């Protein structure tokens, strides 16, 4: 990759160091605000998140490093077709609409801590709740992996002398440090800062591209000369894939275990409602802005390959600094936004995995453990897990977008257990468990077969393997429920 001006020069590195110190201070503040040494306090912040904190932690968690790198990279490669990402980030809120009102109500009465708590309460079948927990853990590990990879790529491509390994290890250490200091309270409070920085960063890069680089002219004139195929309407396969992606990603993200824990952590019903109403419109000022970076990048820096295009955001920042040198100071904010986006997602995922392993798997094996012992065990899990993810991030080769898709294709398999389970009393544990196993098996088989180089289409009829798995999953649930009658 061509390296010109480096975003992470001495000023950039100073800003990042100050930013990281600030995160640790906020993490410490979360630690001192602790009311009791219990899992409820550590993992859900005492179920007391107000509107600002809840909105910004939802925002910072949903919009990750993938938004800044994966989406702009896909926009660069796929063109206007990738507008679908705006819709699927909005479909996430549609997912919440379908289950959050009831789940929030139940969680207040039954003190749920994890997704599996609801599953166990609803179906009273331990193998099902453990399977849901395991799927969540695998999906979130993938999420952490893709975000650590993103931060490594950013540091490496944005600096002259910081390697990917140095970047990944440093940021992984800082995240696990403040996460284990104060749990959800520290994570949510750091998310406030990170959410604000992310929002301002997206506004900034979009503003610079539109007003300083004459972005609209570039999109409508220059881009057509370089990539005329972007103007072609999607083919029927692409349209099917468009719909499939919205369903997989939209409903999949709404089932993130860390998002469900934020629903539990809301201070009140009205706080949750208002936060989600604001979240509806954020794809327009976050996702769409980052897509614009990818599209303008395709016109300004053509010819990048698949891996290199995932760093188009960094390359565009380099390009902007070259063209408009006075923008250098302002773009430092964007550097902070990148770290904010990635770290806020990694910390939430880490906290959620830690709670799942502790509450869903370890606690039933040690029923006499005290709350303090369980919390301590959860913190230990966080450190071990982060160490393992750091190593994997340095050796994994998949593109960022592909890693996201694999995670969501697995997560979507638990959708029937939650969406249907929350609204119908007739659903039984057996068919739901069988459907989940078969749906997950189909998805994994397909993903692994492609990974091993099997000669099969990536998406049969343009539809993701995860959606085919979900269809079979639903058929089994339907047939099983009929037989049970």
């Amino acid at each position, binding site marked *: 990759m061509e390296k010109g001006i480096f975003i992470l020069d001495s000023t950039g590195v100073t800003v990042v160091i100050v930013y990281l110190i600030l995160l640790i201070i906020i993490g410490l503040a979360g630690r001192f605000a602790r009311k009791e040494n219990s899992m409820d306090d550590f993992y859900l912040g005492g179920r007391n998140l107000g509107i600002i904190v809840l909105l910004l932690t939802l925002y910072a968690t949903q919009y990750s490093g993938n938004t800044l790198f994966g989406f702009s990279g896909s926009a660069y490669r796929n063109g*206007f077709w990738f*507008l*679908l990402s*705006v*819709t699927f980030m*909005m*479909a996430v*809120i*549609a997912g919440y*609409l*379908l289950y959050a*009102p*009831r789940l*929030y*109500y*139940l969680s207040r*009465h*039954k003190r749920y801590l994890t997704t599996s708590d609801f599953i166990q*309460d*609803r*179906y*009273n*079948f331990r193998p099902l709740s453990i399977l849901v927990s395991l799927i969540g853990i695998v999906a979130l590990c993938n999420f952490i992996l893709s975000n650590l990879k993103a931060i490594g790529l950013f540091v490496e491509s944005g600096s002259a002398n910081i390697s990917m390994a140095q970047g990944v290890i440093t940021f992984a250490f800082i995240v696990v440090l403040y996460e284990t200091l104060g749990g959800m309270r520290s994570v949510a409070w750091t998310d406030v800062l990170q959410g604000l920085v992310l929002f301002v960063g997206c506004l900034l890069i979009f503003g610079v591209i539109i007003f300083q680089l004459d972005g609209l002219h570039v*999109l*409508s004139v220059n881009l*057509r000369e370089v990539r*005329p195929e*972007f*103007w*072609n*309407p*999607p083919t029927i396969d692409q*349209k099917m894939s*468009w*719909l499939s992606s*919205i*369903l997989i990603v*939209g409903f999949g993200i709404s089932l993130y275990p860390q998002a469900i824990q934020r629903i539990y952590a809301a201070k009140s*019903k009205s706080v949750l*409602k208002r936060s*989600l*109403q604001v979240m*509806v*419109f954020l*794809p*327009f000022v976050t996702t769409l802005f980052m897509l614009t970076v990818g599209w303008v990048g395709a016109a300004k820096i053509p010819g990048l390959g698949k891996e290199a295009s995932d760093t188009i955001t960094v390359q565009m920042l380099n390009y902007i600094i070259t063209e408009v040198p006075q923008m250098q100071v302002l773009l430092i904010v964007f550097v902070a936004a990148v770290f904010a986006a990635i770290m806020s997602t990694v910390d939430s995922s880490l906290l959620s995995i830690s709670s799942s392993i502790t509450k869903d798997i370890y606690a039933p094996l040690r029923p006499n453990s005290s709350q303090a012992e369980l919390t301590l065990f959860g913190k230990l899990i966080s450190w071990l897990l982060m160490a393992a993810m750091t190593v994997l991030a340095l050796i994994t080769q998949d593109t960022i977008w592909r890693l996201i898709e694999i995670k969501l294709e697995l997560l979507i398999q638990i959708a029937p257990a939650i*969406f249907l389970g929350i*609204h119908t*009393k*007739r*659903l*039984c*544990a*057996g068919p739901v468990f069988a459907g989940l196993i078969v749906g997950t098996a189909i998805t994994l088989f397909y993903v692994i077969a492609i990974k091993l180089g099997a000669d099969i289409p990536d998406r049969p009829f343009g539809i993701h393997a995860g959606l085919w798995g979900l269809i079979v999953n639903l058929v089994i649930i339907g047939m099983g429920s009929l037989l049970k009658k």
Partner: protein
Amino acid sequence: MTLALKLFISVLVLIAITVPWFYTAEASPVDEGLPNWFIYSLFMTVIFSLFLFYAIGRFWDQLSGENTMDSDSDKKD
């Protein structure tokens, strides 16, 4: 049909119509500016967002089932 099912179907329909199904290479000549199918999809996404904003405000209490369902009766097996 329950409210949740009606909303689910509405959401699916709205998602489906954000896809520019009726735009083909023959029907969409390259004009000035951005592609027609892109503008169409963006417009339908705006409609989708307005629907969600309204539905969250209007139907939340009914979907929570606070007054109509006994939370303990959810257990089945």
